[in-house]
């Protein structure tokens, strides 16, 4: 059996990659994928704890997260397409019309 520490370590690495990508990358789609990566890192931590504690609650939670993430992906991609049509750009730095 894989020890909890290993699973958590992988989760932290994935989350770190996602967070770093979110901050560093400019392409909206990449940023979007980084968010998915962070979500899945959290899912991994949930499952690790669920197995470690012998409790199914964590796995149920993961299903919810996957469902919500799917919905979010659908809406998010739609928004991205709308933004691209509107602006002709996918760079996140161009989307700053809200600032003063």
């Amino acid at each position, binding site marked *: 059996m894989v020890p909890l520490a290993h699973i958590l370590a992988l989760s932290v690495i994935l989350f770190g990659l996602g*967070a770093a990508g*979110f901050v560093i990358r400019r392409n909206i789609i990449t940023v979007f994928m980084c968010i998915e990566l962070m979500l899945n890192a959290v899912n991994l931590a949930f499952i690790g704890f669920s197995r470690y504690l012998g409790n199914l609650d964590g796995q149920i939670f993961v299903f919810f997260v996957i469902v919500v993430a799917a919905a979010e992906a659908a809406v998010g991609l739609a928004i991205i397409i709308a933004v691209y049509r509107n602006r002709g750009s996918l760079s*996140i*730095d161009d989307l700053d019309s*809200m*600032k*003063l």
Partner: protein
Amino acid sequence: MEVLLLLILLPPLAGAVLNGIFGRRFPQAVVSAVACTTAGLSLLFALLTAWTFAHLPTEPAPYVHSYFTWIEAGAFRADFALYYDRLTLVMTVTVTLVSFLIHLYSRGYMEREGGYYRFFAYLNLFLFMMLTLVTAANYPLMFVGWEGVGLCSYLLIGFYFPRQSASDAGKKAFVVTRIGDVGFTLGVILLFWTFGSVDFQYVFTRLEALAPGYLQGSLTAVGILLFLGAVGKSAQLPLYVWLPDAMEGPTPVSALIHAATMVTAGVYMVARSHALYAHAPLALEIVAITGCVTAFFAATIALAQNDLKRLLAYSTISQLGYMFVGCGVGLFSAGIFHLMTHAFFKSLLFLAAGSVMHALSGELDLRKMGGLRHRMKTTWLTFLVATLAISGVPGLSGFFSKDAILAGAREGPLGDPRLYWLATLTAGLTAFYMFRALFMAFHGPSRVEPAQEPHVHESGGKMTHPLLALAFLSAVAGYVSLPKALRGGEWFHHYLQPVFASSEALLSSTAAPAAAHAPGGLAVMGTSVLFAGAGFLLAYLGYVKFTGLPSRLAEYFRGTYQLLVNKYYVDEVYDWLFVRPVRRGSEVFLWRIADDAAIDGLLVNGSAQATVGAGNLLRRIQSGNLRSYATWVLLGAVLWLGYILLR
């Protein structure tokens, strides 16, 4: 009785309200009819009340009736209650009588002045407030009247408010008397603290039962504080400066408020509080000394005044000083007696001066009068009667009342030879300056400006009839109290005895016995007549016989003369000592620093600027850059996590 008592007060109030609200639309005749009728009704009810009071089966020490509770807060309680005893009787009758005559006079005097209805509304309101003052049964209610008359005085001094000097004079009167009122208020508070009540009857009963010497400290303090109020109201040293300036008001106002009634409120208040002062001989001595010094001081200023009304104003201050001497030596009835006679002859002097002003289109400078005796016979005659009365010529009212005070200063419970001699000397000065005014205005060759000459005329009946009535009163009012020395019964003195007897007895028992070698009544009388005669003679010599003499004397004693003409520079000293520092303090500190810098700058604009500044700083966070937001979120999460882990 209680209805009658209230009825003395109500007509003037009704008149004030009626004229104040609707007077603008009334013709002059209606306005003056309303005002004079209400004043007349007040006089009628005052007389009726006096009659009823005298015919009560048993005379109550004071008759007190509470109409409703006015203020009630914890132990403090003040009713709208009226107090009627023989002192109140004298005051209400004097006030309403003089006031009624002056209302009548004003009909003629104010005919061609603007604001006719406003004048009469104020005058009626004044009468109401004055009557409240003299009939109140507790100190707070008395204070209402006290401040009420002050307000009316302010309004009427500033009656010609478009003139800068008039509105300034009104302000001055208001502010200066307020200094005294602080003392009055503190005195009342201290009294409440001492006795737990501000009700006359309760306090005075307690005081009469009090063994002499007890509570001396508190009572002396109360006495001095209350007297401070009287100093402001009755224009004594050092707060007298507002009264001469108050002459900016219409002349009937000077006669009614600034000679006959309001300024005597302080004397009335001291006499009313006699039970208190009986237990505070030190406070009484202060009253007497202040009065005496003021009497002398104001009389010397009056010697060199050329403005007729101002001269009369200083004379009023001086005579008020006499009244305080009367009260201060423990002969309260003498003070009240002089108050009454003074009300008659001084208002007569003012009204006659008003008549002169009327004839000369407002001219008040004595140097531009002269020879008016032939063309203004009635005015001259009445002015002469009043001058004789105030100078203390035997047979007229002022002689008897002044003599009562002088005798009191010599032989009264707290009498003192120094007070007596200074007061007698003042009597001589009084005769001099009054005859000087008389001679300069009515005798000798005319010095009226040529342009005015053809217009000089006697005033109409509306004005001369009240003059005649007052002249009659000035002449005979003294006979209510013929002194013992002239085989008189001192009826007035005995009449007020039930009110003052206990206090006078207490004072006589505690004070050191008056000098045994005091001259008898006749000697006092003779001396005062001698001094008055000397004053008259000097005035006659200087202003009728050798008219060049005064100016040469003035040249010779230049310094003294300048000092007198400039009223000892008291106004200038006050200006330099109080007005300017306060002004500077207000301008530099209160305005520039406290208001502009601290309140406006720091608090009002400061808080706004702090918000704007904070907003400017916080705005930078809202860069619109998504990744920087994410960085902040991440940073926050890491810091939070770090905090939890390392806690």
